[in-house]
């Protein structure tokens, strides 16, 4: 086998794992083989990841370090260190949108073109706008940003407008904690997203193409800028008789600017707050011009639809949800990363088969980020589909999927997400601005061990009212994590308030720390690690001093330290219960 090229995953996930050093090292040490920086293939757990292209196909190496030993292993195409792509994962995944992600040079238009890039645009250029819209309608593509509005329909609204200026916006303000589908797409295959936008412009008659990308994505912004330059250079922005212009706007960090009306305000230079709809942006959007806003992943799907045809696209998926969906898989799984699955797979498939979580180790998933809800393990046979997830109290959302292991507290999980939305509320609507704060205060009280049954009743009462009384998607979904955990994990709330116990022993005020001396080897690592000197020479944790930072638990080589029920740990003289 002859090595033709070495590709190093240098997306943000790769860089975070040390890919920059690997790239530098390989470029310095290897002279005769081209070294290429690519994006992410989705196996983030294995970063830094290297794909070695040979005349006989590719070989992948995981967790590569800038070391001679690793370099030799790769150049020698040894078995050691190879990435084992498990068969269960390959069976469950259906790689379509991500087909080129991590496989081609992030910044090379030629490579994109060589792999079928801009074929969709070419087809579209030969079609009537109405036919493009029809094709997208036929594909059944629904908005991947979370709402699930049929893309073809949205485009038909904009196409129907007679206006001098029409705006098409790509929503790249991905802000859900734990979500990185859009980032990965923009970094790895920026041209695919831009091609989708150009097709959208053809279909709708849009004259200006905006990308609103969060400033926290510098690599995505760089790659998009490079790709836009390349498009201009190739003249691909000349859509038959007219020329369209791209404009890249960096967000200033407000989560709410992912909401379309807030995003428009932000683009206009105003404070990023949503406004009441109607009028919908397709009637009056950016500076009053008809405007349509689609998500990054939605645009990423469009070239495929044009290339293979709407009908073929629709052959994958369920009755109401077509195609594939990207999920950012995080939390208590063995193999976190980006997964692309066909609509219709079960949650269990994603958690166990793709994520590699052990059966019985997981109690729920949080799907749809802070706006979504939790789905308990006994409902994991639910399929990934806009409507079925909604009926369970969760949402498809943009694709954040956080797996919650048995040792996590669901009340604390709800508190974590609500803390995020309460902080990110734009502060405009009464229910969202004050209501989420009041709910958060109750959750803090409950996880702090001071909660009462009345506090739980307060949450159950106010949550649905915030949903009903808020203007935009943020407020309308913010209470979901609380409502869904109340629905499926009420017993955990009751344990906190009635018995003053945290069943998962996660809440600091409701748990103690104990060293189980029978298995302790007295290595002393815990004593050295403890930042507050709470562990005595006799290996006893003084819970009056302990801050429940978990450092000792993490450092113990024999796993003899654990959290125990409040009051069962030792309390020294310096404090009491």
């Amino acid at each position, binding site marked *: 086998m002859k090595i033709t090229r070495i590709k190093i995953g240098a997306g943000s996930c790769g860089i975070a794992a040390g890919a920059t050093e690997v790239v530098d090292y390989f470029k310095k040490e290897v002279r005769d083989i081209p070294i290429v920086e690519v994006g992410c293939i989705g196996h983030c757990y294995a970063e830094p990841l290297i794909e070695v292209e040979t005349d006989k196909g590719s070989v992948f190496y995981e967790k590569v370090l800038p070391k001679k030993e690793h370099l030799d292993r790769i150049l020698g195409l040894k078995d050691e260190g190879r990435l084992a792509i498990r068969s269960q994962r390959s069976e469950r995944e259906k790689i379509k949108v991500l087909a080129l992600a991590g496989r081609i040079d992030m910044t090379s238009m030629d490579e994109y073109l060589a792999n079928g890039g801009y074929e969709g645009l070419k087809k579209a250029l030969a079609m009537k706008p109405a036919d493009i819209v029809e094709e997208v309608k036929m594909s059944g593509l629904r908005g991947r940003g979370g709402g699930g509005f049929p893309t073809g329909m949205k485009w038909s609204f904009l196409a129907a407008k007679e206006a001098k200026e029409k705006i098409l916006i790509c929503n790249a303000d991905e802000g859900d904690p734990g979500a990185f589908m859009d980032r990965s797409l923009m970094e790895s295959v920026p041209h695919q997203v831009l091609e989708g936008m150009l097709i959208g412009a053809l279909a709708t008659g849009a004259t200006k193409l905006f990308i609103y990308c969060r400033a926290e994505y510098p690599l995505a912004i760089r790659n998009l800028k490079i790709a836009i330059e390349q498009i201009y250079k190739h003249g691909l922005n000349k859509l038959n008789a007219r020329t369209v212009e791209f404009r890249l706007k960096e967000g200033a960090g407000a989560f709410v600017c992912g909401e379309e009306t807030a995003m428009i305000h932000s683009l206009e230079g105003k404070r990023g707050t949503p*406004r009441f709809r109607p009028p919908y942006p397709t009637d009056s959007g950016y500076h009053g011009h008809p405007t349509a806003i689609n998500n990054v992943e939605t645009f990423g799907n469009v070239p495929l639809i044009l290339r293979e045809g709407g009908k073929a696209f629709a052959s994958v998926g369920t009755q109401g949800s077509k195609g594939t969906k990207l999920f950012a898989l995080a939390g208590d799984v063995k193999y976190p990363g980006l997964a692309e699955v066909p609509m219709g797979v079960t949650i269990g498939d994603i958690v166990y088969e793709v994520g590699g979580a052990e059966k019985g180790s997981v109690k729920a998933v949080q799907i749809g980020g802070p706006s979504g809800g939790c789905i308990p393990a006994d409902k994991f046979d639910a399929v990934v589909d806009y409507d079925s997830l909604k009926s369970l109290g969760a949402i498809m959302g943009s694709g954040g999927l956080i797996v919650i292991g048995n040792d996590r507290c669901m009340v604390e999980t709800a508190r974590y997400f609500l803390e995020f939305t309460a902080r990110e*509320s734009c502060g405009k609507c*009464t229910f969202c601005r004050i*209501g989420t704060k009041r709910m958060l205060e109750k959750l803090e009280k409950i996880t702090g061990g001071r909660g009462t049954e009345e506090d739980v009743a307060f949450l159950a009462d106010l949550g649905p009212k915030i949903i*009903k009384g808020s*203007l935009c998607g943020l407020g309308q979904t913010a209470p979901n994590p609380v409502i869904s955990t109340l629905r499926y994990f009420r017993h955990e709330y009751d344990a906190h308030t009635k018995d003053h116990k945290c069943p998962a022993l996660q809440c600091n005020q409701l748990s103690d720390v104990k060293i189980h001396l029978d298995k302790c080897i007295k290595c002393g690592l815990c004593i050295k690690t403890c930042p507050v000197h709470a562990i005595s020479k006799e290996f006893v944790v003084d819970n009056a001093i302990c801050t429940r930072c978990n450092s000792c638990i993490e450092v113990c080589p024999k796993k003899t330290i654990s959290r125990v029920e409040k009051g069962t740990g030792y309390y020294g003289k310096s404090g009491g219960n």
Partner: protein
Amino acid sequence: MSITITIDKKPFAAEKGETILQVAERNGISIPTLCFNQKITKTTSCFVCLVKDAKTGRFVPSCAMEVADGMQIESDTPEVWDMRKTALNLMLSEHSGDCEAPCTIACPAHAQVEEYVREGKKGNLLEALKLIKERIPLPMSIGRVCPRFCEKECRRNVVDKEPVAINDFKRLAADMHYDSYMEEMKPFTGKKVAIVGAGPAGLSVAYFLRLNGVASDLYDKMPQPGGMLRYGIPEYRLPKGILDKEIAHFAKMGGIAIHCNKELGKDLAIEDLQKKYDAVAITVGSWKSSAAGVEGEELAVGGIQYLEKIALAGWKGDNPGKTIVIGGGNTAMDCLRTSVRLGSKEVTCFYRRTEAEMPAEKIEIHEAKEEGVKFEFLVAPVKLRKENGRLVLTSQRMTLGEPDASGRRKPVPVPNSDFDTVADTVIAAIGQKTIAPKGVKANKWGDVEVSKENCRMEGSIYAAGDCVSGPATVVEAVAGARRTALAILAQIESKEFKEPYLLNVSRGKWQSLKTDDLVFLKDPIERKRTPQRLIPEHDRVTTFKEVSLTYTQAEITKEGERCIECSCTAKGDCSLKKHSETYTAKPDAMVGEKPNFGYDVRHPEIILDRGKCIKCGVCVKVCGEVVNQNLLGFKFRGFGTHVDTAFSQPLPSQLCRDCGKCIGECPVGALDWKLKK
């Protein structure tokens, strides 16, 4: 009119482009709004105008939602009300301010204290009197004898621990203008009420009825009207000449007739009164001294009976000799100081707790001491006997134990600590009880039993004052009497009596506040409380002359300048308060952290009090869209959102033309003129 929608199942014609709110308002359907303002583009932030779209099941802000043909709107269902109330509860939960000044809230009669103090300060004492008399029909008396609930809560205490001398404003206003003042009264309705007892409660019932055109006949068992004001409060605190002048005013009002020497059960029968009058009010007071429950106590005289006897004699009497007064309340102080004035050289108070627990007013204790009264604390009577023509009181020493139901530490006897004291007069002033007249229902404490809701005993018989509450203060009797009078009026007019729900947001009690917790329209003036001038010491111990002197007008102006005017600048003009009262929203329904973004008084005339801001955004848009200046904007996000100027600079006077448009449109008191009118 091309479209038809229904609101609460009634069809209405509407035009395309109209909002639900426009259609509702045109048709007289009331929907509350806070952030809606016709002068600016929609803000859609407050969500109190929510209605339900029955077809979609969604709640929509009616100020922004445009009508569509066939729309079915619910505006008056319990669900919609609950949503609006929740929005208001949430806003109130972060609202910092004082709808009313704490003095007004503390006053049992809820007189408009800050307002009459301001009028007094400006020298408009007639205007002050008018405000006082809206709630207090006896300002000459109350201006002298009130224990000053208002001053105990006065926020001036935060500044220098000395409240504004509020009560003295009443006294001066009344003393100056009582002869000429006459209130506006409704014409007579032909209705008439019998009032039994012409004390503060009875007179006040008569007063509030008369203001509303209802005449009354007052009956009193004593030879002269005034009740406790005449027979229970000594001349040196309330000269009876002043009381006569105060009572004479009731006769001047017309329609109020006072019949003395008429006792219910003896000279009058309640059945007859019921037949003859449209209603009857029992206001007989609480006149019987409580028993001490010790052996030989018949040898002692009851406190109130002691004062009554001397009052009947025109504040004259024999020297009581060596006097012991048992008790620590105001009546005990009155007995002590009266005994001094009758010539006794040895007057001692026996009280079973310590001075800190004494229920009497501090000033009374202080003045009693000045007049030579001695105090024996932690002593309780055991036995009273007569020996060689003199009285011998056996007492025991006490010590303080655990707190009792009143929160005060309970006195516990010290074993074998009995001791004897010889005295000529022993007065038991340990409390009073109501003797319910014949035909009147009494509860287990002996007080007249009335409904809490409407002060009614039964049928058309009502009651008010001490005989309902047990012995209390004049101002409390007046407050209760007003309620009773309004309840009687409602019955006369065949209406249901319901006290309106009044919202009051408060920054809290001054004891728990620091100056940083308060908002000052201007820096508080540095000035100590004006001391009350008293008559010479010699006159105090030898005569019954009034001890204290009325403040001069100059003193009142100086004292009024100490008021920090803590009530809301938007009083009477606050939409949040108005809607909260309609929807019974409460400040403590959803308690939690209140944001503290401070306030801005750097503009010479305008205050921005962010604690009151509801973040509706109207001011921001008014300044931007109407005035075209954009001087105001929102800062931060979530719960931290608040209105500020660019870089928190003072409102620039070149750009801010002090037009006040933002103030005019602010639905609450967040932006306002500093000067209170």
